[in-house]
Structures are given as C-alpha cells and as structure tokens.
C-alpha cells in the first residue's frame, strides 16, 4: 500500500525537479561569476516557446536546440546591459523577464491565434533503465524518467568538477569573488561573465524546453510560473554548490509533488496550500540559514 503511494510521489518529485534543477544550475554558474540573473524567468519562457516552435518544425531534438537558443538569445540582451552598459542587475533582469513574458505571449498569439487551439505535441516518453529501474522504491523514481533527467545526472557532477578543478572554473569563481583582483591576475572578467550568462540562459531555455517537450506538450502564456525566481532561491538554499543546488531542487520537486500524494491519500486540503507551500518553505529555510557567508563576495556588483 505504502509503495503504491510513494512510487508515484517520488517519480513526480524527480520529474518536477528536473527543469528546476537545469534553471538553478545555470543561475549557479551566473552567480558564481558575480551576476544575479533575474532575467532567468524570461529565459525559461523563451525556452518554452522556442522549443515548441522548433519541435513543431523538426521534432523533439530540434526542439531542445530551439529552447537552448531562445534562452541564450534573450539572456544576451541582459548580458549586454549588465556587462557592457554596467546597469543595475536587478532592474535589467526584471525588465528582461517582462520582455520574455510579453514577447512570447504576443508571438504565440501571432503564430497560433488567441483561440487557444494552439500547437499540441506528444511529449517524449520516459525510458526505463534496465536493472536500475527495478530497484524497489527509488528505482522507478530515478531511472524511469525522460532523457533530460538523465542529462541532468551527468551535468551535476560535471559542473561541480568544472568549477573546482579547471582553470576556467577558477577564473569564473575569481571573477565572482573580486573582479578587480581577477583582472589583475590576467583574467578578462567581462568575457567570463558573458560566457557564464550565455550558459545560464541556455540552461534556462533547457528548463523551458523540458517543461514543454517532456511534460506539458504545449505552450501557454506565463507557463514558466515563477520557476526562474524559485531557481534563484534554490541556489541560495544549495549554498552555491552544484550538488547542493541539485539537492535543493529535488526538495522543491518533492514539495510540489506533495499535492499528488495528498490527493491520493484523500486529504481534502485547499489546493492553493500546495501551490504556496514551496514558496513558504523557501522563505522559512532562508530565514533559518541566516547570513550569506557562502555567497560569492562580489555578487551583484
């Protein structure tokens, strides 16, 4: 009985966590370079539409490429403002998010009309990994997922290793801690930040593409639903480390998936409680963690 309830819950938790983790890993890299990217939400929604349009033209693979490109493209606007023009990061990010939400809404209506009969794609199917998916309880949750989840499993250790052990990773962290000192050491902070932001934008786009291609199958206005902002909070909760970020994303996935569990248990609580729960949890955790000792010292400057 317990297994009947827990397996779908854990599967849903991992499924919901996947796009969040992509966005949060991108934000992690941006923040380690010293930039807080509030335009992430805009990159996600751009990725949603880019993926849908591209997948409609040439299948799911092109869809993912379209999502990555759309996310990186809109984030380039943000990067130009904060790196080249050196404007305020918070305000430029807010504007880019609004730009993404507005543009995608207008473009979608332009392409498919406002009647709601837009483009609907069949979502990509989960692949069960032989052997591993047969492990009781955690097997199906971790190893009966779609391709993006498996890509995530590879990406988390890769980013952790890259940040810690490569020259480029060191340059990135140095830029985030103290960009003048990094410059004195022969690093080009602007180039580092451009790279970090384009990567962050592409991962934001991947978050959107995963939502559309692996989960929803279509686009609706504002479907990013604040995931970009949640991802920023996830990075804080993950203490700016790749594994921490992935773990925090999983926690969020579980918080979102609780509603399925409670429905299955037949508890009738107002569903808005579950919508609010992840945000409330984040605030509570942020308050408990206190201080920002592990944040990159130069974040936001």
């Amino acid at each position, binding site marked *: 009985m317990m297994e009947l309830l827990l397996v779908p819950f854990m599967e849903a938790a991992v499924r919901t966590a996947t796009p969040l983790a992509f966005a949060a890993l991108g934000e992690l890299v941006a923040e380690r370079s010293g930039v807080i990217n509030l335009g992430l939400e805009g990159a996600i929604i751009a990725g949603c539409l880019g993926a849908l349009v591209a997948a409609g033209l040439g299948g799911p693979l092109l869809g993912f490429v379209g999502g990555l490109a759309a996310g990186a493209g809109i984030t380039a606007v943000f990067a130009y403002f904060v790196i080249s023009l050196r404007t305020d990061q*918070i305000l430029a990010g807010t504007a880019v998010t609004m730009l993404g939400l507005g543009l995608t809404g207008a473009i979608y209506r*332009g392409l498919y009309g406002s009647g709601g009969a837009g483009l609907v794609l069949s979502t990509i199917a989960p692949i069960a990994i032989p052997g591993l998916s047969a492990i009781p309880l955690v097997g199906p949750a971790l190893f009966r997922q779609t391709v993006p989840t498996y890509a995530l499993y590879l990406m988390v250790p890769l980013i952790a290793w890259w940040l810690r052990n490569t020259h480029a990773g060191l340059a990135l962290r140095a830029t985030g801690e103290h960009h003048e000192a990094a410059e004195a050491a022969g690093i080009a902070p602007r180039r580092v930040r451009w790279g970090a932001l384009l990567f962050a934008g592409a991962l934001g786009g991947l978050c959107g593409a995963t939502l559309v291609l692996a989960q929803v199958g279509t686009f609706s206005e504002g479907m990013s639903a604040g995931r970009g902002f949640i991802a920023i909070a996830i990075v804080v909760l993950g203490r700016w480390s790749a594994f921490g970020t992935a773990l925090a994303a999983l926690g969020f996935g579980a918080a979102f998936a609780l509603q399925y569990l409670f429905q299955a248990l037949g508890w009738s609580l*107002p569903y808005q409680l579950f*919508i*609010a729960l992840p945000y409330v949890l984040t605030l509570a955790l*942020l308050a408990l963690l206190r201080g920002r000792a592990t944040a990159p010292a130069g974040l936001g400057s």
Partner: protein
Amino acid sequence: MLMDVLAALWDGAFGSAAAFWSATLVRATPLMLVGLAVAVAFRAGVVNIGAEGQLVLGAIAATAVAQWLGAAPGIITIPAMALGGMAAGAAWAGIAAWLRRRSGVLEVISTLLLNFIALALLSWVVRGPLQEPTGIYPQSSTIAAGAHWPFLLEGQRLHLGFAFGLSLAAASWYWLAHTASGFRVRVAGAGARAAASAGGVDVARTTFGVFLISGACAGLAGASEVGGVTWALYEGISPGYGYTAIAVALLARLDPRWVVVSAIFFGALEAGAAAMQRDAGVPAVLVQVFVALVILGVLAGTQLRDWRREQRLVARAEAA
C-alpha cells in the same frame, strides 16, 4: 496598418472625455500609488519588487473590511477599507523587511516569493472565506453601495483613489525633500556605510520603516481598486500593476512629483492597449514588452549620462 493601431491606441487613451477620465486616469490610479511605493523604497535602497503581492493583500483586507462592516455608512467604511488595505500591505512587506533585518535575506528574493504566496492566498480566499454566497463563482460578493468609493466627477469613473494618489505624491515629495527623516532615507539609499559612519543614521531602522511605508502605499492601491473600480474581489484584480510600477518609478527618476506624470502616461498606455486589442486586434500583452523596453531604455540612458558627466569631469581635470 500601423496608423490604425496608433489611432486606436490614442483614441482609447485620449479620444474622448470618457476615455481620459474613465479609462486613462482610472488605470493611472493604482499605478500612481504603487509607483510611489516603489519610488520611495528605491530611494532608500530597498529593492521592493513585491508591490504586486502587497497590493493583493491590500485588496483582500479591504474586501474583508467592507464585508464585515456591511451596510455601515461610507464615512466609516471607506476610511476603514483604506486603513485596512494599508495595514495589510505594510504587514506583507513587513515579512520581507523583518527577514532582511534579522536574517539578511535579500529582499529581492523574499518579496518575489511573497508575490506568489499572495496570489495563492487570493486564489483561496475567493473560493473560501470571502466567496460569494452561492459558491459558484471564484469571487467575492459585491460590496455594499455605501462602501463604493465616491466618483470625483459627474458621470465619469474617476474615483477617490486618484485623489489619494495625488495627495500621497505631494506628501512623499515634501517628506523626502524637506524633512529630516526624509533626508535620512535619502542618505541611507545613497550609501549605507557612509550614512551610518558619517551621518549617524540608523540605516537598518530607516530602511525597515521605509519598507513598511512602501507596503502601505501598495496596499492602499489594492483597497482603491476594490473600492473604486471592481467593487468585488477576484483573481485577476491586478494585471501586474506591481511590476509596471517599477517602470513608472524609474521613468519618474524616483521623484514623487514625476510619478504622477509617469503613472498617467502608463495609464494611458494600458487604456489605449485595451482599445487597441478591441479595435485593431493587437494583443495587449505587447504593453508588457513596451514596459520592459522603457525600463531598459531608462537604464541605458542613465548610464550614458553618467559616462558623459564622468568624461566631462576628466576633461576638466586634464585642462586644469
């Protein structure tokens, strides 16, 4: 084609007395109140991007107060709604202010998260405690006629909230420009460390207070929408006024006097966009794109001006 669109936009905003007094200024009202909330906060260095949530809380509280007072005379109900909205907005902002002061949680993140919680709360109250008695529609019942905020002009929809907006703009301009506590706010915003060491300003306390005032302004905007426009509470009570307000405040260069002008400009844009969608088939979401472009434009413009000033100073120094 473009001329048709622009003509529809202009007509919707200024084309007739009704367009101006009943559409443009009615939409400018919440933008003015929330724009002041954002401007005052930014002046103190408080990045309150949670005005949307504070507005929603204000709307919920004002509706609850109006329902609770029922058929009481307007002279009691209307001030009670305004005060209730302000208190709720301030309390909602207070959560973020308290988190910032006590645990160092960035208000950028906390206010954004609180926006989502506020929307969930709104979604619940219009299906739960404040739902209309038949329980069919996700909205409150209409507030009593006595609780409707009075119109300012015969036959037009412009209401008391606009007068509140103008008075608050005047008051906050005077406060920031001509009082000692307003001066403390400005120095706290200009440089927290210098304000504390050289000016003896208690920065934490000053910004905490400004945060609450900012929330109260946004909460009043919510009360004003319920009392003056919708007369009921429902989920779409704010089409993102809290976010547009950032553009309103920036375009006004955070000066309360200019917030009035800038709010009317964006009010005209929103009113015109509604007409544009109706008459020319252009989606109103494009307004959001325009708002974003205004913010980016102001940011770029400010930066260029600062660079030029810097260059002039360098040139002067070299000449001397």
